[in-house]
C-alpha cells in the first residue's frame, strides 16, 4: 500500500486520515491531528519525549508508524487535563515540585508516569527512577521529577482506595 487509512481514537475523540506509510505516529499526532503536545526529541527511540499510551501501554511514538495505530486508542498529554481544565494530579505535582524547566521532556515523563503509577501506586524513589530511565531530561537533574512522581502517587492514592 502506498497510502494507509488510519482510524484512531485519541483522547476519546475519533479521527480518520489517509496517510503515507512512512509517517510515524509522532508526526501523525503533531502534523495530521495538530496535537503538538507530544514532543519529538531524537527520532530514534532514545529520549522518550514522544511517549504516548497506545491501548494503555506506553510507547515511543517515533518508533511506530501511524498505519500501525489503526484501530488503537491513544492517550497523549492533551488528554490528561480534566474537561473542567483542572490539571491531572501528576501534572499538578510536577507544577508544585518544579518537575520541569524547559518542559521539552515533560509530556513523555507524564505519560510514562501515568502508566507506571497505574501499575504501581506506591512506588519507591528507586522504582520511579527505573520507570523514567527511558526519558531524558537535561534541565532538572531528575530529583524534582522523582519528588513530583512520589507526590503524585500520594495524590492519586485516595481515588484508587
Amino acid at each position, binding site marked *: *500500500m*502506498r497510502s*494507509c487509512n488510519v482510524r484512531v481514537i485519541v483522547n476519546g475523540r475519533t479521527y480518520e486520515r489517509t496517510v*503515507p*506509510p*512512512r509517517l*510515524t505516529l509522532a*508526526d501523525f499526532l503533531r502534523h495530521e491531528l495538530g496535537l503538538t503536545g507530544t514532543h519529538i526529541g531524537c*527520532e*530514534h*527511540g532514545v529520549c*522518550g519525549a514522544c*511517549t504516548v499510551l*497506545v491501548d494503555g*501501554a*506506553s*510507547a*515511543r511514538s*517515533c*518508533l*511506530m*508508524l501511524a*498505519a*500501525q495505530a489503526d484501530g488503537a486508542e491513544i492517550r497523549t498529554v492533551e488528554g490528561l487535563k480534566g474537561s473542567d481544565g483542572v490539571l491531572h494530579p501528576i501534572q499538578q505535582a510536577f507544577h508544585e515540585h518544579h518537575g520541569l524547566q524547559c518542559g521539552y521532556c515533560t509530556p513523555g515523563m507524564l505519560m*510514562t508516569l501515568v*502508566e*507506571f503509577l497505574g501499575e504501581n501506586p506506591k512506588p519507591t524513589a528507586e522504582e520511579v*527512577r*527505573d*520507570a523514567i*530511565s*527511558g526519558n531524558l531530561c537535561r534541565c532538572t537533574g531528575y530529583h524534582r521529577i522523582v519528588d513530583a512522581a512520589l507526590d503524585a502517587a500520594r495524590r492519586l492514592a485516595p481515588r484508587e482506595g
Partner: protein
Amino acid sequence: MKPPPFEYHLARSVPEAVGLLSQLPNAKVLAGGQSLMAMLNLRYVHPDHLIDINRIPELDGIDIQDGVLRIGAMVRQRRIETSAEARAAAPILCEALRHVGHRQTRNRGTLGGSLCHLDPSAELPTLALLYGATVHVAGPDRTRAVAMADFIGGYMTASIGPDELVTAVDFPLWTNDHGYGFSEFARRRGDFAIAAAGVLIERASDGRIGKVAIAVAGVDAVPVRLGEAEAMLRHKAASDELFASAAETCLSLKAIGDVHGSAAYRKKVAVAMVRRSLASACERAGRGSAR
C-alpha cells in the same frame, strides 16, 4: 530524520507474510519496530517494502508443554517479563528482561525481533543461547527448527533466508529447583550492556554442580557460551575460587572494542559478571527458590 519511502503491507497470517517476503524485492519484516524503526529514521536501511507482522495472532502465544517453554515470535518483551508462567518456569528470563531497553520499548519490542536483530549486547539472544533454545522458522516451502547456536550467523546477522520468518522459540526447561543468575553492566539504566552474563545451574544429588550453562553478551561480535568454564565447573563442589577461575576464561574470548569500552575492558567486566551470576545461580540452586 524521517523514514525513507516504502510500501506497507499488513500480513494477517504466517503464510501471507512468508508469501509477501518471497514475492517482494528488498522487503523487511516489521516486528516490534524498536530497532528497525530507529534504523529507518536514521536511514540506515532503505527497504522498498515493509511487512508488518504485528497482527498475526498465531505468533503471540506463551505456553509450556513437555518441559518446553514456547514463546511466539511476536510476544512483547514486557509480556514475558510480567508473565507468571514464564517467571515460574524460567525466572532468568524475567530477571534479564528488566535490563532490556526501557518499559516503553519493552511494551513494543518482541522476542523474535530481538533474535533476528542479534545485537551482540542484547539479552534475549544471549538467553536463547544459554538455554540452547530452538528457533522455529517458516519459509515459503517448509518450516525448519534451528538450534540457537546455528541461528547466530555472525555480527548482527541471523542465519535466516530473506523469505523466512521466525515464528516461535522453544526454551527447554531446567528442573524446578535450578539456580539462575543474570548480571549486567551498562553505563546507564537500559543502555546496551558493556557486558552481561547469564548462568543456569542444577545441583547433582551429592550437592555438587551437575548441569551448568554460561552465556555472555557484549564481548564478542555475537553472544557466546563459555564451554570451557562449563566443563571446569561440572561435577565440582562450588567455591568462590572455582567460580573465579571459571570466570577468568572470559579473558581468552575474542572481543570487540568500541566507543563504549575497549576489548580488554569488556573482557574484564565480563569476568565480574560471570562471577556474580555464578554466585547467585549457585545460591539459588536446589533450594526450591528458583521455582
